[in-house]
Every structure is written in C-alpha cells, then in structure tokens.
C-alpha cells in the first residue's frame, strides 16, 4: 500500500515497532478510515497531488502515515487551512480530515463557511461521539445520556442534544455530495470506502465540495471492547445519525473548477492600479511664496455628502503633480455615515513634516457647525471661505483673517448638479488664495476624470464659476 509511508519515521522517529504501527488505540476507527483513504488515493492516482490536512484530536498525527503533502492545522481550522492550499495550487487535491471536537465544536464556523463556499475540497469527518485525545470528554455529537468525563451523569438537556453535521452540511448550497457511513461491519466498511473514493473523485474532477461523515469507534473512551463498540455504534449511534447519502448533486454538477496561474505582467499590475506613465503637466512657477512658509495647511470641513474629502484629494494631487509634497488625512465624526466630515491637507515645498492641521492657513467650510468649530483655529493672516448659500449668518469670526462667503451650493444648483459644490469651492479656493494657477487644478480634473470625460465640462464650469464668485472679502 504505497500511499502509506514505508516507514513511519515521524512516529517517535520511527524507532522500533513504532516505525510500522500507528499511535491509535487497538480497534480505533481512525485506522480503518486511514486505510480506506490511502486505498482511495491510490485508486484515483492522486498521491502526488494530495495535500492532507491533519486536525487536532487523536488524528493530529495523520501525517505520520500518509506519503502525501502534509500539513497540520490549528484546532478546528483544517478546512480553511485546506482552502488556503487549494487556492495556492488549484491542481492540488486537498483533504481536511477532522474529528468531532475539531469539526463540530471549535471549528464549526470554519466548517460551515467552507462548505457553503463550495470550493472543491474533501472533508472526512470522524464522528465517534467523544473527545479522544483530551481523554473522553463530552463531544458535540455525544448521545443523550452518554457518560463522559465532563458529563459524568450522562448528557442531559442542559448540555443540548447531539449535532447532526451531515444533515447540516447537506442543507447548504455549497456541497455537491454528503454521505454518512459507518465501519461496524464488512458491508458498512465497503460503503465507507466507496464514499471516500467518490468524495475524492468529485474533487479530482473539479465538481466541488464533498463531505463524508464516518461513524467510528473509540473503544478506549467508550470503555468497551472494540466489538462492543461496533455494536454500540450500530445500535445507539445510527438511530441518531442515520446512515446514507444526504445529498448528491455530483452527476448534474459539471466540472467547473478551473483557475489560471496568477499574472505577473508589470503593465497589467500598474494598469489596474492606474499608474500614469506620462509625466503630469506643470503650470505653477514654483511653490506659492506669498504664504511665507514652506508648508501650507488647510482644513476642509462639512457634512458627509459635501464632498470635502474629494476636494481635499484634488488639492493634494494638484500640489503633487506640480512637484511638491502633499498629504491628506480624512476624518469622520463618530456618526461617520452622513455626519461631520473634515479633511486636513498639507502642501510642502520639500516634505510635509506633520500632516495634521490643528491651526490651518486656510479653512473651507461647507456648513455652519464646521465654520463655528474651525474658524477660531485658523491662524492669523489666514483665509476662511464658507458656503454662503448654507451659512446665511456667519456670526462673529476671528479678526485678522480674510473671509469670503461664496454660494457653493447656489452655484452648483444653477449648474443643475448640487454634487459639484465641492468643485465650486475648489475654484473659490484658487481665486481666494492664488495657490496655483487655475490651469494646475484643471489639469488635475482632466487626470482624475480621464475615464469619465463626459463629466469634465461640468466640473470645469463649476470650477470657473467658483473662481468668478470670489468677490471682495466679507471681512
């Protein structure tokens, strides 16, 4: 049987008899399922493609035995570890081999989510109604009345009743094949062997996810002889966990799993990221000296729909395209959907040191709360521009700042597009500050709208209207 290692070197370094015997207790169902799995892998000729994910539980050491690619997963996470393997190499055949504690308790979320995704992997679920490795505690599949180390008086209603995983998995849309089998007599073992091979064939053919639940024997913790355990599985487990096919859509599901190798073509990556290969146009003569500093800061503030963030980005981008450094930090109020929204922008001749703008040179306010909050922070000699359509009474503003009221909203409404009020505002900002020539901003608009050229005339008009509306300062 070539799918088993010829020597179990990983079992206590293969010393003595351990080199050829399992770590399982006498009569344990795991060994039988291992044999069936090994035979199925061999029958399908997939040994070289197989990645077996060992779980946590008694079968944690499944990798001692199978001469396939092996990985050992954290408790309950085997199916998602398997998914990682499958997506890395779509050609691989991935088997997630798990016990009841692993699959139906700690890993329930991973189990269900992976099944529902339905990508072609094979899950072999060993249900022996008890925790093996930790020493015989209550499993999610323990039967009512079953005495375990953590249900010494028997499982009762306070612990809930056993979970039927095959039924649960079968009612999801993802899986194409779900069957529950057992090992308690020769007939069941033959059926189990067939089910395992079928589940693997479905994966090999790229038809989807398959799940085989195996009712298995844990003589040690049931404190019964292997023979009596077989009987217990047959007589006590099968009424709760009925055997048979719970779902089989394998025949009508066409092979669909077909993934190409990832692309590493540089043009493709850069194209998707929107990298420009043409140098940006430059229109400014240099860094705006009239602010008498090498780092100019801005606050653009409004409510969610005002477009303050977009205007801020356009401002930063204009500076960067002119060859300077710039940053933009968006900030949303706690009620981030539709609440307050403000942006800190810096433009620097060489490098923006601190991107925060607690005392901006320029404030662009789209609503009254923003004006009230931020106007006092504008530094002396700075500029305040506000939407005079919305803010009819600006109240008392700090002295020593140049203040402009521009009807952003009014102009945008005249243009039939209230959403361009931020572009109107940007035009106003240009005219009020002479930061860069208007053409610099126009170039930015052309760049960002290069895939939406139809919107360009409207935006240009909005910008120009904002510029023209800047009259003499209010104060």
């Amino acid at each position: 049987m070539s799918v088993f290692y010829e020597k179990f070197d990983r079992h206590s370094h293969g010393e003595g008899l351990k080199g050829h015997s399992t770590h399982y207790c006498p009569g344990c169902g795991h060994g039988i399922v291992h044999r069936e799995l090994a035979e199925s892998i061999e029958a399908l000729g997939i040994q070289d493609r197989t990645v077996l994910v060992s779980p946590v539980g008694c079968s944690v050491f499944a990798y001692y035995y199978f001469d396939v690619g092996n990985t050992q997963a954290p408790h309950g996470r085997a199916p998602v570890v398997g998914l990682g393997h499958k997506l890395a190499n779509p050609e691989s055949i991935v088997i997630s081999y798990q016990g009841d504690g692993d699959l139906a308790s700690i890993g329930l979320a991973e189990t269900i989510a992976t099944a529902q995704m339905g990508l072609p992997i094979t899950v072999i679920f060993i249900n022996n109604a008890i925790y093996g490795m930790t020493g015989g505690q209550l499993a999610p599949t323990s039967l009512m009345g079953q005495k375990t180390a953590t249900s010494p008086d028997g499982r009762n209603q306070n612990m809930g009743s056993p979970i039927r995983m095959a039924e649960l998995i079968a009612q999801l849309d993802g899986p194409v094949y779900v069957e529950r089998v057992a090992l308690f007599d020769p007939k069941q073992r033959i059926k189990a062997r067939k089910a395992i091979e079928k589940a693997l064939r479905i994966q090999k053919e790229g038809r989807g996810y398959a799940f085989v639940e195996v009712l298995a024997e844990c003589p040690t913790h049931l404190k019964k002889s292997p023979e009596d355990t077989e009987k217990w599985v047959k007589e006590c487990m099968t009424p709760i966990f009925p055997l048979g096919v719970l779902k089989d859509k394998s025949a009508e599901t066409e092979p669909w799993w077909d993934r190409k190798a990832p692309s590493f073509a540089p043009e493709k990556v850069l194209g998707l990221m929107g990298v420009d290969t043409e140098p940006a146009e430059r229109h400014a003569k240099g860094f705006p000296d009239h602010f008498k500093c090498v780092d100019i800061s801005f606050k653009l503030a409004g409510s969610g729909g005002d477009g303050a963030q977009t205007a801020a980005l356009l401002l930063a981008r204009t500076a960067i395209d002119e060859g300077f450094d710039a940053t933009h930090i968006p900030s949303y109020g706690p009620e981030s959907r539709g609440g307050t929204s403000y942006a800190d922008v810096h433009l620097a001749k060489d490098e923006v040191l601190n991107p925060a703008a607690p005392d901006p040179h320029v404030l662009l306010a789209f609503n009254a709360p923003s004006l009230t909050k931020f106007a006092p922070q504008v530094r002396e000699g700075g500029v305040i521009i506000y939407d005079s359509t919305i803010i009819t009474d600006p109240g008392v503003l700090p002295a020593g700042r140049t203040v402009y009221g521009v009807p952003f909203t009014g102009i945008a409404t005249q243009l039939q597009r209230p959403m361009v009020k931020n572009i109107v505002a940007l035009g106003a900002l240009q005219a009020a500050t002479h930061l860069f020539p208007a053409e610099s901003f126009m170039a930015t608009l052309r760049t960002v709208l290069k895939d939406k050229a139809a919107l360009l005339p409207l935006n240009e008009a909005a910008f120009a209207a904002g510029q023209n509306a800047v009259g003499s300062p209010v104060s």
Partner: protein
Amino acid sequence: MAIPASQRPKPFLEPEYCKGCLRCIDACPKECITEGDAINAATGLVPVNLNLDNCNGCQLCVQACPEPYGLRPQAGPVATDAHGDFDLEDPKNLFGAKETGAPVAKAQPSEEIPLPLGQPMVLKGTYASALGALLAGCRHVFGYPITPSTEGAELMAKVLPKLDGAFVQAVSEVAAINMMYGCSGAGLPCMTFTSSPGFSLMLEGISYMIGAELPGVIVNVMRGGPGLGNIAPEQADLKLMTRGLGHGNTHAIVLAPATPQEMLDLSRKAFELSFKYRNPVIIAADGYLGQMTGVVKLPATMTKPGLPEWAVWGDREHRGNLICSIFLSEPDLEAHNVKLLAKYDAMKAEAMFDTYRTGDADVLLVACNTPARMAKGAVEDLRAQGIKAGLFRPITIWPFPIEGLKPLLPQVKRLVMVEASPGQLEDELRLALSHAGLACPPITPVQRYGGILPQQTEIVAAVLKGGAR
C-alpha cells in the same frame, strides 16, 4: 472480471503489528481468525491466530484491520510455518528503509521583473500597502472587514481576480489567518489587512505560523481600544506585536511605517523578510496612516515569487514535506525553540531607524508611525525656539534599533517619548537599553490615548515645560 478464489491473495500478519483488537475476527466469513492466547513479548499485546485452510482471499479481514501494517494481502510467497506464524523480520527487508518515495525538492528562485517608469502616485496608506504587496508578488489575500483597515482588502478584492489571484473574505479573522497558514504552507506569499480587535483574534494563528515557520504579512492598522474601543488611531497594540504574538516563544519583525510611501516600501520589504526568515512579519500602522493620502513613488522592479523547497505544494516534488508545529518529545521541541531563538537573534540585523536633525540634539524625541510626524513638526518648532531637538524614529519596533540610538546617547540630556499608547514604545526602548547595558536618560512622556494622537503643540509644550521621570 472476478478473480477466482484460489488466485486471490490470502492475508498475512506480522504478529508484532497486531494490536489484538479482534475486529478482524467478526469480519471473516470463513472463521479463519481466532483470538490469540499468547502475549507477544515485543508488544505486550495478544495477536490473533490465523488458520487459512478455508480462506477464500475475500480480504474482508484486511479491510477491518485498523493497522496499516497489520493484516495485509500477501504479495508473493511469504515464509510461514504450518500454522501461518511468522518471525519478525528486519523491517528494512520487509518494507524498505525510506520514509517517503518522494524526491528531495529544490527551491525555485523568485525573479525580479523590471517595472516601466511610472509617475508618482497619490495614494492612501492602505492602498499603498496593497500595491507594495502586489509588487512583492502577493496574489493571495485573506481578510475580514474591519475599520480602518478594510480599504486595503477592498482594493485587493477588485484587483486580484483580474490578476488571476484570490481574495477571500473569510468567516472571521481566525479563518483568515488560517487560510494564510494554508496558502503560505503551499509556499506562496500571502497577506491580510486587519485592525486591533481582528489582530487579537489572529494571534493563535500567528503563533502556529511562527511554530510551523511560515511566512506571511499581517498589516495591523491600529485603532483605539481596549475592547471595541473606536476606529480612531492608536498605538496600543505595540506590546502585543512585540511581546505577545500568541502563546509560546514567539517573535516577528514589526515594521512601523510613517508615510504612504513607507506603507508601500515596507509592505514590499515585509514579504522579502518573511520569506528570508520563514516567519510572519507584522506591519504596524495606525488609523491615520491607513487613511492618509500622500505621494508614493514606484520601485524599479516587481517580484515574481518562486517556490521554496519546503512548500507543501501538492505535487510530486514537494510530497515529502510537512508543515507542522508539533514536536511531541521535549528534546525535539527544545531544539526547535533553540532554532527559533537563533532566528530571532539573526533578525536583529534587520533593525531599521530614521533620524531627523539629531546631529547636535540634546533633546531627543522618539516616536514611530504618524506620531513621529507630529514629532518631526515639533522638532522644527523647538529648533525655532533655540532648543536643540532631534527625532529618533524606530522603523522596526521589534527588533528595537538600539544600535541606531546608541551613538546619540552621549549628547542626549532628555528623551521625549511621543506615542498614542501608555508607554508601550517606551517599554521597548527601556528593555532595549537595559539589554544593551546602557543607562536610560531621563524620559518625558507625551502620551494620548483612545484614538487621539499627540499633537505638535502638545509635544512642544511638554518639552518646554520640562520634567521627566
């Protein structure tokens, strides 16, 4: 076509490999197998007896046997005595000496592909990090939405399908990190974007990745905590990233970018380091940096990843490999820990830092991430007021770049620790000083919590006010 009974192989059994479970007895329709009566000296178990006179070779007993080298069909003649008993032969003759039939895998090297000259981009931090990952050859991203990191994942979800890569929105952060465990176990570069509460959930998986020596990049855009906290920037996961990466003896290189450009550069670098050391690498960003837009220049090349020799790829060449963090015997696990410790030690060579106006500085500000930028602004303000201030910015938080700090110390009268955490960076610095046998200068802490970053004016005021502990 059915093989006649006379030609079907009969079973044989090495008694040493029989555990005496008796499952084969019921399986045999011909009653060829009976309960044994003698304890086997080698195993202390009682193997069954076989009398194959009536055996028809149906193999039902073989199918019932849980032991791979228990009951097996005879391949060719097997020397037996009249009762079908065997002597234990040397397993080398019986089974072959080797563990796997797979060949020894060779590493397939990665390739650097030249990039066409692109113009500087205007990108937010999370996007820059995503681009850095793409240029590092990452085509597999696993994530769970959490503010303020999600935009990185959103960008990947848009771009990766077009590059025939994969973005999977996992059922939880726990699942996401374990998808990374799988994908990385297959030898490919992969990553996730998360934020503090999600990062907490990933710690189990990170410990397993470190134990199993798996690469992978985790971008933690830190937000306010503890608990659900808020979505504003904080730096209070530094302790978790430097000292608390899940259970056991764990460490990972922690990179702390301060600009969108560094989000790209360090994300790219993270993959290189991660594969170099077969260990996860953490990008510690803060909420501001994740959202901050700035200028980002592109590197000259893009990496096309190879396939490491240790990968469990799912092909013949890599069949002999195992990804695993279990070492059952104590000496084995100790040896594994010693190996990991040597690796952590080697990682110290990767320590990175940046300095700003430290030449003659006697007041040294120390900060990382966005607070380092507020501190940089403060250095200018302080200099304008005649104070010889400078900034030391660790880029690796673990390992702490103590060698970079050391030469500055003789002239430094005071350290000013600027951070959005209650001294977690300061603790790293103190530990590093102490391990290096260096005296710690007086420290003035400038700390904010709960999603508020220390502002330039506060830093300046704290320095002017003086006072240290």
